[in-house]
């Protein structure tokens, strides 16, 4: 396990080294139109991994997710999402601490206590009604809020869209949410598998629409990921996304 982790770290370090010079030159020679929030110097490799992940989804994860969607009522899926969200409490708690956000950490602690007890293991969410709305954070966002740049776009095998910063964040999130695996590997597998399938079931209409409505699905996802992560890094409050660059709304004239 330690070995796996250190080799993952080595891989990321390598990606930084390989990707950063390309990223830097990309910025210099940036085409005049393309926005630089979605630098993608490794597009060739990324597209291949994206395709691999999509096959994995289409042949395995999506059919299981659709099956689960078909047999389960919405209320069950909603409650399960809440349960898994509650289990991920350590991720948000620690991320708030990394951000030096004591209020946020306290709020998360309050939510976890209330929802685990009154909310029956987190299947229900009375805390929100009591004014504990929770925070929007993870380790990648916390690093971003400290000013760490995301780096170039990166598709991770199985895990999907990311960047070097968020990959580091993902490792942190994984360690922090490994509680169930500590009980036993079987419990860990059930929790992780269940979370994935329930999430995929909930995302059925979203992903179907995205594939259908996009002209280039790969670019659609890349841009959506970059925009979403950037806005969340910039926002303190989950409902207060920062404005996107102002020149986005400037009309270019003919001359």
């Amino acid at each position: 396990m330690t070995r796996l982790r250190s080799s993952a770290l080595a891989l990321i370090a390598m990606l930084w080294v390989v990707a950063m010079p390309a990223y830097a030159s990309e910025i210099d020679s940036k085409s005049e139109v393309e926005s630089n929030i979605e630098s993608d110097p490794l597009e060739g490799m990324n597209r291949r991994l994206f395709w691999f992940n999509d096959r994995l989804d289409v042949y395995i994860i999506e059919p299981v997710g659709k099956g689960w969607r078909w047999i389960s009522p919405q209320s069950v899926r909603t409650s399960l999402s809440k349960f898994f969200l509650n289990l991920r409490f350590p991720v948000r708690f620690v991320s708030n601490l990394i951000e030096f956000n004591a209020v946020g950490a306290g709020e998360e602690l309050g939510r976890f206590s209330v929802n685990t007890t009154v909310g029956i293991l987190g299947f229900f969410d009375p805390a929100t009604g009591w004014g504990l709305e929770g925070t929007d954070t993870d380790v990648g966002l916390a690093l971003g809020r400290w000013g760490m740049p995301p780096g170039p776009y990166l598709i991770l095998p199985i895990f999907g869209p990311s960047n070097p910063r968020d990959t580091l964040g993902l490792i942190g999130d994984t360690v922090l949410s490994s509680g169930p695996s500590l009980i036993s590997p079987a419990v860990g597998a059930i929790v992780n598998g269940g979370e994935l399938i329930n999430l995929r079931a909930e995302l059925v209409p979203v992903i179907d629409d995205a594939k259908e409505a996009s002209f280039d699905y790969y670019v659609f996802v890349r841009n959506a990921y970059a925009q979403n992560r950037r806005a969340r890094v910039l926002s303190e409050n989950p409902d207060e996304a920062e404005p996107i660059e102002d020149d986005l709304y400037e009309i270019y004239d003919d001359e």
Partner: protein
Amino acid sequence: MIFTKSMMTNSRLAIALWASLIALPVCAEDARTVVTQTMDDVVKVLSSPDLSIDARRTQLEEIAYARFDFERMSRLILARNWKKLSPEQRDEFTVEFKKHLSTTYGKRLNADTYRNETIEVTADRKEKNGDVTVKTKIIGGAADGVLIDYRMRQSDSKWLVLDVIIERVSLVQNFRSQIQELISESGVSKMLERLREKNAQAMAQAS
């Protein structure tokens, strides 16, 4: 002479006054009110049980066509590529983009998937360039809590939708990125071809 001149001024004044009275309700409408009204209209159409599918789609389209500034959106999406397009290609892009939005969004907004969700207008923010962003949130259903912002711009004293930002993802920026990729990979005419092809597919599936 003086008499006629003052009469003319008077009648001009009267016309101006009359015009401003008519225009008043429109001016008084702020961006937030427009969004709230539009959302109410959409929910009303979605929740009326006796409408046929076609009637519902037509009504939703009418609402969208009255509230979206498709031409400006198209220009923003094309950004600096705008100058690479001939006037005919620009018109075609606008038409196809409009078609694209109404088929994809029209499908998303249908009665089968409508589960009495409501839309709450949570805040509005004045942008530096005079636009207003109106923030909304979906309440209830599978999409509970999803954030949708509308960037509004005033044009001829009417507030029109310039961009839709779903879960912090701007539609204009997302399309801009995709269109840019298509144009730089294979040129303007191939990009338009892809747009037409995609719309034809969507139309075939919708009917």
